[in-house]
Protein backbone atom coordinates (compact mmCIF):
# COMPACT_ATOMS: atom_id res chain seq x y z
CA UNK A 1 0.00 0.00 0.00
CA UNK A 2 1.43 3.37 -1.05
CA UNK A 3 0.55 5.79 1.69
CA UNK A 4 0.40 9.06 -0.29
CA UNK A 5 -1.70 7.38 -2.98
CA UNK A 6 -4.12 6.14 -0.34
CA UNK A 7 -4.50 9.65 1.08
CA UNK A 8 -5.20 11.00 -2.43
CA UNK A 9 -7.77 8.24 -2.90
CA UNK A 10 -9.36 9.07 0.44
CA UNK A 11 -9.59 12.77 -0.50
CA UNK A 12 -11.15 11.93 -3.87
CA UNK A 13 -13.74 9.63 -2.25
CA UNK A 14 -14.70 12.26 0.34
CA UNK A 15 -14.89 14.98 -2.35
CA UNK A 16 -17.02 12.78 -4.62
CA UNK A 17 -19.26 11.91 -1.67
CA UNK A 18 -19.83 15.53 -0.66
CA UNK A 19 -20.31 16.59 -4.28
CA UNK A 20 -23.03 13.96 -4.85
CA UNK A 21 -24.74 14.75 -1.54
CA UNK A 22 -24.85 18.46 -2.44
CA UNK A 23 -26.03 17.80 -6.02
CA UNK A 24 -28.70 15.41 -4.75
CA UNK A 25 -29.97 17.68 -2.00
CA UNK A 26 -30.05 20.51 -4.56
CA UNK A 27 -32.51 18.37 -6.50
CA UNK A 28 -30.33 17.19 -9.38
CA UNK A 29 -30.92 13.77 -10.91
CA UNK A 30 -27.71 11.74 -11.36
CA UNK A 31 -25.78 13.19 -14.30
CA UNK A 32 -22.39 12.66 -15.89
CA UNK A 33 -20.66 14.64 -13.14
CA UNK A 34 -22.08 12.52 -10.29
CA UNK A 35 -21.69 9.20 -12.10
CA UNK A 36 -18.24 10.23 -13.33
CA UNK A 37 -17.05 11.03 -9.81
CA UNK A 38 -18.08 7.52 -8.71
CA UNK A 39 -16.33 6.04 -11.74
CA UNK A 40 -13.15 7.84 -10.65
CA UNK A 41 -13.54 6.44 -7.11
CA UNK A 42 -13.90 2.93 -8.60
CA UNK A 43 -10.87 3.41 -10.88
CA UNK A 44 -8.70 4.40 -7.91
CA UNK A 45 -9.93 1.31 -6.02
CA UNK A 46 -8.85 -0.91 -8.92
CA UNK A 47 -5.42 0.79 -8.87
CA UNK A 48 -5.32 0.20 -5.11
CA UNK A 49 -6.08 -3.49 -5.69
CA UNK A 50 -3.19 -3.79 -8.16
CA UNK A 51 -0.87 -1.93 -5.77
CA UNK A 52 -1.93 -4.17 -2.85
CA UNK A 53 -1.25 -7.33 -4.85
CA UNK A 54 2.14 -6.07 -6.06
CA UNK A 55 3.38 -4.33 -2.89
CA UNK A 56 4.53 -7.39 -0.87
CA UNK A 57 6.85 -8.33 -3.77
CA UNK A 58 8.63 -5.00 -3.18
CA UNK A 59 9.00 -5.52 0.56
CA UNK A 60 5.92 -3.44 1.40
CA UNK A 61 4.04 -5.86 3.68
CA UNK A 62 0.83 -5.17 5.60
CA UNK A 63 1.28 -5.10 9.40
CA UNK A 64 -2.28 -6.29 10.04
CA UNK A 65 -4.68 -8.98 8.83
CA UNK A 66 -4.44 -9.58 5.08
CA UNK A 67 -7.85 -11.28 5.09
CA UNK A 68 -9.49 -8.26 6.72
CA UNK A 69 -7.73 -5.90 4.31
CA UNK A 70 -9.03 -7.71 1.25
CA UNK A 71 -12.53 -8.07 2.71
CA UNK A 72 -12.68 -4.28 2.93
CA UNK A 73 -11.16 -3.83 -0.53
CA UNK A 74 -13.55 -6.26 -2.24
CA UNK A 75 -16.51 -4.73 -0.37
CA UNK A 76 -15.45 -1.24 -1.41
CA UNK A 77 -15.06 -2.33 -5.05
CA UNK A 78 -18.71 -3.48 -5.06
CA UNK A 79 -20.19 -0.20 -3.84
CA UNK A 80 -19.68 2.31 -6.70
CA UNK A 81 -20.98 -0.04 -9.45
CA UNK A 82 -24.03 -0.89 -7.31
CA UNK A 83 -24.77 2.80 -6.65
CA UNK A 84 -24.29 3.80 -10.31
CA UNK A 85 -26.47 0.88 -11.45
CA UNK A 86 -29.16 2.17 -9.11
CA UNK A 87 -28.69 5.72 -10.41
CA UNK A 88 -29.18 4.58 -14.01
CA UNK A 89 -32.26 2.57 -13.03
CA UNK A 90 -34.03 5.26 -11.06
CA UNK A 91 -33.42 8.82 -12.13
CA UNK A 92 -34.36 10.80 -9.04
CA UNK A 93 -32.51 13.23 -6.80
CA UNK A 94 -32.30 10.57 -4.11
CA UNK A 95 -30.26 8.36 -6.39
CA UNK A 96 -27.70 11.16 -6.46
CA UNK A 97 -27.70 11.17 -2.65
CA UNK A 98 -27.21 7.39 -2.71
CA UNK A 99 -24.14 7.91 -4.93
CA UNK A 100 -22.79 10.25 -2.24
CA UNK A 101 -23.49 7.72 0.53
CA UNK A 102 -21.63 5.04 -1.44
CA UNK A 103 -18.59 7.29 -2.01
CA UNK A 104 -18.43 8.25 1.69
CA UNK A 105 -18.71 4.58 2.69
CA UNK A 106 -15.78 3.84 0.36
CA UNK A 107 -13.82 6.64 2.09
CA UNK A 108 -14.41 5.04 5.52
CA UNK A 109 -13.39 1.64 4.18
CA UNK A 110 -10.21 3.01 2.54
CA UNK A 111 -9.28 4.63 5.86
CA UNK A 112 -9.77 1.27 7.64
CA UNK A 113 -7.62 -0.39 4.98
CA UNK A 114 -4.86 2.15 5.62
CA UNK A 115 -5.04 1.43 9.35
CA UNK A 116 -4.89 -2.32 8.77
CA UNK A 117 -1.89 -1.99 6.45
CA UNK A 118 0.13 0.48 8.54
CA UNK A 119 -0.77 0.36 12.25
CA UNK A 120 -2.83 -2.77 13.03
CA UNK A 121 -0.81 -5.59 14.54
CA UNK A 122 -1.77 -9.01 13.24
Amino acid sequence: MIEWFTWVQLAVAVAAGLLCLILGLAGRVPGDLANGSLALVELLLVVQLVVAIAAPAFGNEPTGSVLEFYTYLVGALLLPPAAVFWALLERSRWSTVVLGVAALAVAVMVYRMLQIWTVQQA
Partner: protein
Amino acid sequence: MRGIGRVLVAVYGVLALAAVGRSFVQIASKFDEAPLAYALSALAAVVYVVATVALIRSGRGWYRVAWLTIAFEFAGVIVVGGLSIVEPSLFPHDTVWSRFGHGYLFIPLVLPVLGMWWLATHRPVPAEREADAA
Protein backbone atom coordinates in the same frame (compact mmCIF):
# COMPACT_ATOMS: atom_id res chain seq x y z
CA MET B 1 -40.03 2.27 -1.40
CA ARG B 2 -39.61 5.67 -3.02
CA GLY B 3 -38.03 9.03 -2.43
CA ILE B 4 -35.81 9.58 0.57
CA GLY B 5 -36.56 6.03 1.69
CA ARG B 6 -34.14 4.98 -1.05
CA VAL B 7 -31.35 6.56 0.93
CA LEU B 8 -32.41 4.59 4.00
CA VAL B 9 -32.21 1.39 1.96
CA ALA B 10 -28.76 2.37 0.68
CA VAL B 11 -27.45 2.97 4.20
CA TYR B 12 -28.97 -0.36 5.29
CA GLY B 13 -27.24 -2.04 2.36
CA VAL B 14 -23.88 -0.56 3.33
CA LEU B 15 -24.34 -1.62 6.97
CA ALA B 16 -25.35 -5.12 5.85
CA LEU B 17 -22.19 -5.29 3.73
CA ALA B 18 -20.06 -4.09 6.65
CA ALA B 19 -21.63 -6.60 9.06
CA VAL B 20 -21.27 -9.51 6.62
CA GLY B 21 -17.66 -8.54 5.88
CA ARG B 22 -16.63 -8.26 9.50
CA SER B 23 -18.45 -11.41 10.47
CA PHE B 24 -16.79 -13.29 7.60
CA VAL B 25 -13.34 -12.18 8.78
CA GLN B 26 -14.07 -13.08 12.41
CA ILE B 27 -15.39 -16.53 11.61
CA ALA B 28 -12.72 -17.31 9.02
CA SER B 29 -9.76 -16.24 11.15
CA LYS B 30 -10.57 -16.48 14.85
CA PHE B 31 -13.92 -18.15 15.51
CA ASP B 32 -12.46 -20.26 18.35
CA GLU B 33 -11.56 -17.18 20.39
CA ALA B 34 -15.16 -16.11 21.01
CA PRO B 35 -17.74 -18.41 19.41
CA LEU B 36 -20.67 -16.66 21.10
CA ALA B 37 -19.72 -13.11 20.10
CA TYR B 38 -18.87 -14.13 16.55
CA ALA B 39 -22.00 -16.24 16.12
CA LEU B 40 -23.95 -13.19 17.27
CA SER B 41 -22.08 -11.09 14.69
CA ALA B 42 -23.09 -13.52 11.97
CA LEU B 43 -26.72 -13.53 13.11
CA ALA B 44 -26.75 -9.72 13.14
CA ALA B 45 -25.27 -9.66 9.65
CA VAL B 46 -27.98 -11.99 8.30
CA VAL B 47 -30.69 -9.88 9.95
CA TYR B 48 -29.31 -6.71 8.35
CA VAL B 49 -29.37 -8.38 4.95
CA VAL B 50 -32.98 -9.55 5.43
CA ALA B 51 -34.00 -6.08 6.66
CA THR B 52 -32.46 -4.49 3.56
CA VAL B 53 -34.33 -6.87 1.27
CA ALA B 54 -37.59 -6.39 3.20
CA LEU B 55 -37.32 -2.60 2.86
CA ILE B 56 -36.86 -2.90 -0.90
CA ARG B 57 -39.74 -5.30 -1.50
CA SER B 58 -43.32 -4.14 -1.23
CA GLY B 59 -46.43 -5.85 0.14
CA ARG B 60 -47.78 -6.70 3.56
CA GLY B 61 -45.62 -9.78 4.10
CA TRP B 62 -42.36 -7.94 3.53
CA TYR B 63 -43.65 -5.03 5.59
CA ARG B 64 -44.06 -7.40 8.54
CA VAL B 65 -40.61 -8.92 7.93
CA ALA B 66 -39.14 -5.40 7.89
CA TRP B 67 -40.77 -4.62 11.26
CA LEU B 68 -39.52 -7.86 12.80
CA THR B 69 -35.94 -7.54 11.62
CA ILE B 70 -35.63 -3.86 12.43
CA ALA B 71 -37.15 -4.36 15.90
CA PHE B 72 -34.71 -7.25 16.43
CA GLU B 73 -31.80 -4.97 15.51
CA PHE B 74 -33.01 -2.27 17.83
CA ALA B 75 -33.39 -4.76 20.71
CA GLY B 76 -29.95 -6.16 19.88
CA VAL B 77 -28.15 -2.84 19.91
CA ILE B 78 -29.88 -1.79 23.15
CA VAL B 79 -29.34 -5.07 25.03
CA VAL B 80 -25.82 -5.89 23.79
CA GLY B 81 -24.79 -2.23 23.84
CA GLY B 82 -26.01 -1.82 27.41
CA LEU B 83 -24.46 -5.06 28.64
CA SER B 84 -21.13 -4.28 26.96
CA ILE B 85 -20.91 -1.10 29.03
CA VAL B 86 -22.31 -2.38 32.36
CA GLU B 87 -20.61 -5.78 32.20
CA PRO B 88 -17.73 -5.56 29.65
CA SER B 89 -16.43 -9.02 30.64
CA LEU B 90 -19.48 -10.56 28.93
CA PHE B 91 -18.38 -9.20 25.55
CA PRO B 92 -14.58 -9.10 25.49
CA HIS B 93 -14.67 -9.25 21.68
CA ASP B 94 -16.28 -6.60 19.55
CA THR B 95 -19.62 -7.19 17.89
CA VAL B 96 -21.45 -4.80 15.63
CA TRP B 97 -23.59 -3.82 18.63
CA SER B 98 -20.88 -3.42 21.28
CA ARG B 99 -21.03 -0.05 23.04
CA PHE B 100 -24.12 0.89 20.98
CA GLY B 101 -22.39 0.44 17.64
CA HIS B 102 -19.42 2.58 18.64
CA GLY B 103 -17.18 0.91 16.01
CA TYR B 104 -19.68 1.80 13.28
CA LEU B 105 -20.16 5.52 14.02
CA PHE B 106 -23.30 4.61 16.07
CA ILE B 107 -25.11 3.89 12.80
CA PRO B 108 -26.51 0.58 14.23
CA LEU B 109 -28.20 2.62 16.98
CA VAL B 110 -29.66 5.37 14.79
CA LEU B 111 -30.68 3.31 11.77
CA PRO B 112 -33.38 1.10 13.38
CA VAL B 113 -35.05 4.22 14.81
CA LEU B 114 -35.14 5.81 11.35
CA GLY B 115 -36.29 2.50 9.90
CA MET B 116 -39.18 2.13 12.36
CA TRP B 117 -40.16 5.77 11.76
CA TRP B 118 -40.20 5.10 8.03
CA LEU B 119 -42.30 1.94 8.42
CA ALA B 120 -44.77 3.67 10.74
CA THR B 121 -45.32 6.53 8.30
CA HIS B 122 -45.43 4.35 5.17
CA ARG B 123 -47.92 1.57 5.79
CA PRO B 124 -48.58 -0.64 2.79
CA VAL B 125 -51.82 0.11 0.98
CA PRO B 126 -54.56 -2.52 1.54
CA ALA B 127 -54.64 -5.30 -1.06
CA GLU B 128 -57.79 -4.14 -2.90
CA ARG B 129 -56.46 -0.59 -3.30
CA GLU B 130 -53.16 -1.96 -4.46
CA ALA B 131 -55.06 -3.85 -7.18
CA ASP B 132 -56.94 -0.67 -8.12
CA ALA B 133 -53.72 1.28 -8.41
CA ALA B 134 -52.22 -1.37 -10.68
